[in-house]
């Protein structure tokens, strides 16, 4: 399938981390075009493009930009969410290390569109290499005099998944613990420093130059209805060719996993697929023809999320998967809302009991009940991100769970997730130096 990349366009042909190469490939032409347009026209193009946020929630970018409060007497801020931390997701990282100038160009165009002079890029602290690349690219842009009075500040996080949630990110950027705020007020009205703020994901912002180049009406013809354009899909797990692949939305999952990804290694069978990062409900092997777009995933009772496709082969124990996922969210719960803080802990305890073969059938229902008591009951979606996938594992792989209870232990001796040490466990174990 010939695929014309948009976000990663040109990255195969040159070193686009260098401004000269990026310009030779047509870079910053969209910026010049945009700056000759009225700001409102930029937002119109974003609306016409129907581009939906690439961070996970899929909210239309143009709509978000149009919500920004006007005439408040306060500055308007653009905040780029580069805190990519959803397990399975590593696309923004690739965008930053391969086409950093496209992200910066997207920032400058968007800033013009929302009449902002201040841009903050919040990049997760672990991405040191990508931070250095972005910093060097930004220096080149500054020297080339392209900023036109806009300041772009690169702000590094310090290790907290929750800071990918927009209001937690704002708190963190304001120098606080990264705990989500209650909404309303929404960031479009009171965001960073209580001022109108637009927060968008790296991939979304890096797409803006292409939307301006092509025009929103043309961009929306890429992909499928309700899912315009391309996505950089992150493919990982039990697949031959893991990596990031930019494909039109609507591409069948099968094509990504088998044609592009080379299928499952060592002749094993597919068991399950997580289609949008660890927080979304799982798909079974027979759903592998589902298309990678927002509506098709919703029809399959899951979500496209961050576009992170995790492939799971038939050795894997779904109880262990649930446990590892729950351990992650327990570790990352900020502690502000009780259902999430306590519920994720309960999920881990019940799943450990099931995995060890110590559970009764009633505890499957208890687990689902705990999930239900988290869902929709917190300020932010982190708790949901634990409850939704785990409930789906029980629902769609109930036999895996039942067998643990019936057989008094785990029936999957070759599962790669067997006793994998999670950071939450590491904190608990005693200090012990080997002889």
């Amino acid at each position: 399938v010939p695929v014309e990349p948009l976000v990663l366009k040109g990255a195969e042909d040159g070193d686009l981390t260098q401004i000269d190469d990026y310009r030779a490939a047509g870079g910053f032409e969209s910026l010049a075009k945009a700056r000759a347009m009225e700001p409102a026209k930029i937002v119109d193009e974003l609306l016409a493009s129907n581009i939906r946020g690439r961070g996970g929630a899929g909210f239309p970018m143009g709509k978000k930009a149009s919500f920004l409060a006007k005439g408040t007497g306060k500055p308007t801020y653009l905040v780029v969410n580069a805190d990519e931390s959803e397990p399975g997701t590593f696309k923004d990282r690739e965008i930053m290390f391969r086409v950093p100038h496209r992200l910066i160009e997207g920032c400058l165009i968007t800033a013009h569109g929302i009449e902002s002079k201040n841009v903050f890029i919040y990049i997760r602290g672990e991405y040191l290499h990508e931070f250095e690349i972005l910093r060097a690219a930004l220096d080149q842009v500054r020297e080339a005099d392209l900023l036109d009075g806009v300041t772009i500040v690169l702000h590094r996080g310090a290790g907290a998944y929750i800071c990918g949630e927009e209001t937690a990110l704002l708190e963190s950027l304001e120098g606080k613990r990264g705990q989500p705020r209650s909404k309303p007020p929404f960031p479009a009205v009171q965001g960073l420093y209580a001022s109108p703020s637009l927060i968008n994901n790296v991939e979304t912002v890096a797409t803006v130059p292409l939307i301006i180049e092509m025009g929103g009406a043309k961009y929306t013809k890429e992909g499928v209805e309700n899912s315009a354009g391309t996505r950089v899909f992150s493919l990982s797990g039990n697949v031959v060719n893991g990596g990031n692949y930019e494909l039109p939305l609507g591409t069948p999952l099968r094509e990504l996993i088998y044609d592009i990804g080379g299928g499952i290694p060592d002749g094993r069978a597919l068991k399950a697929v997580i289609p949008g990062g660890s927080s979304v409900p799982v798909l079974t092997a027979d759903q592998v023809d589902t298309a990678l777009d927002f509506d098709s995933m919703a029809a399959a009772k899951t979500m496209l999320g961050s576009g992170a496709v995790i492939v799971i082969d038939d050795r894997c124990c779904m109880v262990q998967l649930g446990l590892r996922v729950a351990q992650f969210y327990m570790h990352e719960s900020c502690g502000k809302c009780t259902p999430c803080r306590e519920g994720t802990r309960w999920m881990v305890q019940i799943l450990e009991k099931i995995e060890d073969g110590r559970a009764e059938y009633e505890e499957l229902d208890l687990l689902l009940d705990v999930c239900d008591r988290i869902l929709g009951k917190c300020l932010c979606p982190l708790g949901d991100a634990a409850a939704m996938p785990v409930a789906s594992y029980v629902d769609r792989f109930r036999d895996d769970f039942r067998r643990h209870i019936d057989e008094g232990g785990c029936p999957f001796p070759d599962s790669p997730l067997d006793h994998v040490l999670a950071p939450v466990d590491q904190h608990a174990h005693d200090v012990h130096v080997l002889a």
Partner: protein
Amino acid sequence: VIERIREIAAQYPDSRSAVLPALRLAQEERGHLDREAFEEVAFALDLTPAYCTGVASFYDMFHLDPVGAQLVEVCTNVSCALVGAQQVLEAFESELGIRAGETSEDGRFTLRTVECAGGCGWGTVVAINHRYREPVRADDVPAIVEELRSAG
């Protein structure tokens, strides 16, 4: 350090925003964040040491206790675990003679597991002083440890 912190703070409309970069600077200077580090950051930004400690304790990359000169972090989240992260971790444990979460007695190495590092398709991801190596397989570990030991 105080001067550098104030330079960073000038980039923001509110100097409090400089807390994370300031803590990072202090940690780079001292290896970990001790009482004096918090006093220094607090002084530079006109905050209290308690406030700075409260912020630091929220984030995984800030060390409230000493860590080894070489911080070895192994991602054991789902994607890496599916391709053998536990075996990679165990190989580091055996080569370094310490368990995950520990620092070697000579203070040279700290080994720990981390949550998703964002290299899922290139797993297992191992970060050594925040420089990623990917993919790392259990077989690669002896050579990596030897390299780290000879680097002093």
